[in-house]
């Protein structure tokens, strides 16, 4: 039959046995799950035994684009990566942009499921339908830029796309990432550590077959709509990427500052996306097929003459190459630039007004392979502990952990990635570190279910409350109460494109040819959320885990703390909306039947 948008081919790779097999799950499977979280939850329930060690051989690592990935329309460059999370012990999943997901679809695959553990470091080479296991011993320990260069040279194909871990993933840092294009990152929940535990250094992929489309003309009209209405709908992202709203956040009293203790930062204008543009941004880059082009690229030199030369030779005078006034750091433009979460987590929340140092930390996180959000929030926790005397110089091996110390942060990034000194404790993530330390350090955590919250304060932003409380991944800000985010995750449509629900439906129809209704889209999103919930319940999570840490019961100068009653009311409302029982959040039999997930649910006991 004619298939559009997908191939009905899932690649399974067994690293232990060095074998591969192809699953053809059928059209109803793809339509039911969409991709992304739907696929991931299905495979985690199917293959990961209850109680499995996330860093052990029984975990699986799922690379899941969606049905839209690879279609020639802005926003269709996304994919998700999922596994049991080493940070939370529950459902782990992270979304990424870039080109890798589209290349995988062009290679003829809808997803890759990695099983087992290799005895030596390897990388996979997926060249259209052919799959090779290649020795990666010579790449182990290298940073992401060196690895990408080496792999492309070995394969002799400069157009291959590489998804990889950095040294942090190899060292099982619990918030290690999987990066593609060096600055497109599946950042949250520690998927890089899972990949490192499997000794899988990278997956290179090359595909030459365009994704088949049901209605290319219709899709082209959508693409034209995006570019012709750029000013009205996408101007901020197009001009600045994210981080242009930080001054507003601070004025409103909701800017995470000094471990979420304050809501405003007097120097926020020194470190926002506008400052980045004015001082060190050389260009903006795009993901696959996207005209919004929202990804910052920064370049900083230690000396002014080097910056001037770079500006003339590399950018023809059109980019602003920054200079470190203190002559400390060079920041390589290969690694992109800091988006909002990084500017906040590795900047404002640590009390930093040194934009050069923030850019340096961001670059290092990209070449070492760590999540800037979890790292930044873990550092903020540690700094508050140090301030309060809960952590001392004896604990830190003589390294002071102070807010407002940009150079210390840069050193700590390296220490955490390599688990050196105090870095070894911090590499566990703040919740595990707090449990190890004790001494009341848990009072300073900003984690939910073990994952550090992102940089949007739920005391300031009501829309974030349900997300942090109830996202299956923990302190995740992208799972708000409505279904739009969930659906976009599963079909893989970028959240930054201002498509309304009707346009999203049109895009899905134009790509797949499915006669899909809004109700079906909602059901698909509900299915993904409920499956992820079932996985977490199986792994021992309960309603007690659906709560914010004590920090968020404290008042901010301009916003009240959230009471236990308020949080409980949101949780109950969410449970009921999802069709779960109102007390424990267990999906009801009726909901499981309505979502047609009886077989998956049977694996959740």
């Amino acid at each position, binding site marked *: 039959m004619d298939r559009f948008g997908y191939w009905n081919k899932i690649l399974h790779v067994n690293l232990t046995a060095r074998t591969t097999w192809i699953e053809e799950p059928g059209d109803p499977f793809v339509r039911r799950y969409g991709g992304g979280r739907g696929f991931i939850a299905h495979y985690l329930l199917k293959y990961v035994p209850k109680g499995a060690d996330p860093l052990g051989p029984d975990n699986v690592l799922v690379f899941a684009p969606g049905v839209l990935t690879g279609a020639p329309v802005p926003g269709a460059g996304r994919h998700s990566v999922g596994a049991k999370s080493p940070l939370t012990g529950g459902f782990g999943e992270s979304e990424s942009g870039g080109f890798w997901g589209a290349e995988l679809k062009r290679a003829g695959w809808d997803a890759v499921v990695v099983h087992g553990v290799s005895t030596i470091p390897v990388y996979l080479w997926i060249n259209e339908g052919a799959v090779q296991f290649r020795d990666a011993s010579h790449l182990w320990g290298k940073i992401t830029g060196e690895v990408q260069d080496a792999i492309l040279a070995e394969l002799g194909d400069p157009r291959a796309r590489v998804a990889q871990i950095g040294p942090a993933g190899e060292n099982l840092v619990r918030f290690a990432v999987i990066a593609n294009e060096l600055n497109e990152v599946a950042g949250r929940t520690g998927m890089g550590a899972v990949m490192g535990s499997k000794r899988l250094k990278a997956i290179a992929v090359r595909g030459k077959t365009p994704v088949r489309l049901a209605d290319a003309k219709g899709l082209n009209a959508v693409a034209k709509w995006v570019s012709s209405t750029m000013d009205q709908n996408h101007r901020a*992202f197009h001009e600045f990427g994210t981080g242009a*709203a930080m001054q507003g956040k601070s*004025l409103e009293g909701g800017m995470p500052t000094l471990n979420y203790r304050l809501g405003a930062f007097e120097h926020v204008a020194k470190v926002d996306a506008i400052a980045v543009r004015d001082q060190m941004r050389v260009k903006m880059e795009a993901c696959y097929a996207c005209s919004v082009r929202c990804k910052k690229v920064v370049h900083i030199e230690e000396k002014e003459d080097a910056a001037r030369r770079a500006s003339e030779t590399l950018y023809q005078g059109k980019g602003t190459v920054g200079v470190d006034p203190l002559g400390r750091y060079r920041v390589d433009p290969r690694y992109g630039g800091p988006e909002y979460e990084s500017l906040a987590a590795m900047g404002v929340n640590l009390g930093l007004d040194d934009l050069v140092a923030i850019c340096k930390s961001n670059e290092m996180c990209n070449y070492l392979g760590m999540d800037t959000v979890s790292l930044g929030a873990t550092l903020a926790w540690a700094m508050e502990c140090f301030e309060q005397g809960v952590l001392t110089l004896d604990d830190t091996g003589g390294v002071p952990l102070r807010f407002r110390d940009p150079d210390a942060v840069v050193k700590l990034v390296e220490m955490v990635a390599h688990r050196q000194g105090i870095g070894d404790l911090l590499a566990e993530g703040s919740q595990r570190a707090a449990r190890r330390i004790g001494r009341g350090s848990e009072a300073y955590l900003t984690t939910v279910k073990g994952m550090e919250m992102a940089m949007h304060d739920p005391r300031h932003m009501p829309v974030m409350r349900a997300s942090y409380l109830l996202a299956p991944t923990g302190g995740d800000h992208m799972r708000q109460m409505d279904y739009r985010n969930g659906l976009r995750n599963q079909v893989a449509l970028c959240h930054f494109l201002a498509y309304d629900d009707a346009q999203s439906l049109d895009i899905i129809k134009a790509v797949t040819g499915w006669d899909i209704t809004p109700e079906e889209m909602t059901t698909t999103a509900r299915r993904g959320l409920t499956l992820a919930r079932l996985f977490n319940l199986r792994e021992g999570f309960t309603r007690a885990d659906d709560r914010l840490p004590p920090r968020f019961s404290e008042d901010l100068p301009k916003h009240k703390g959230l009471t236990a009653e308020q949080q409980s009311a949101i949780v109950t409302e969410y449970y009921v909306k999802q069709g779960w029982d109102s007390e424990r959040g267990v999906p009801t039999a009726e909901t499981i039947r309505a979502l047609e997930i009886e077989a998956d649910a049977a694996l959740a006991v």
Partner: protein
Amino acid sequence: MAAPNAPARTIAVNVTFFADLRRHLPRGADGPQRYELREDATITDLLAAIGIPADTDLTAALDGELAKRESPLHDGAEVMLLSPMEGGA
């Protein structure tokens, strides 16, 4: 008391647009934009003069402080129009 046919006094304010509110900038323009308004104008009047719908979710700051929509403006006021919500990443 002003003479009955005297022209209304005006004030000039500078407005800086942030984030996606920059879509209200004139094409090709950047930086603060100057608007002339009646001397008793408020933030609400300013938004109307710019063409920003009254129900737009935004934050207004007047001379560096959060301001309500009914806040009166003055000659030389520095207004920031911000939208604090942006997506992930």
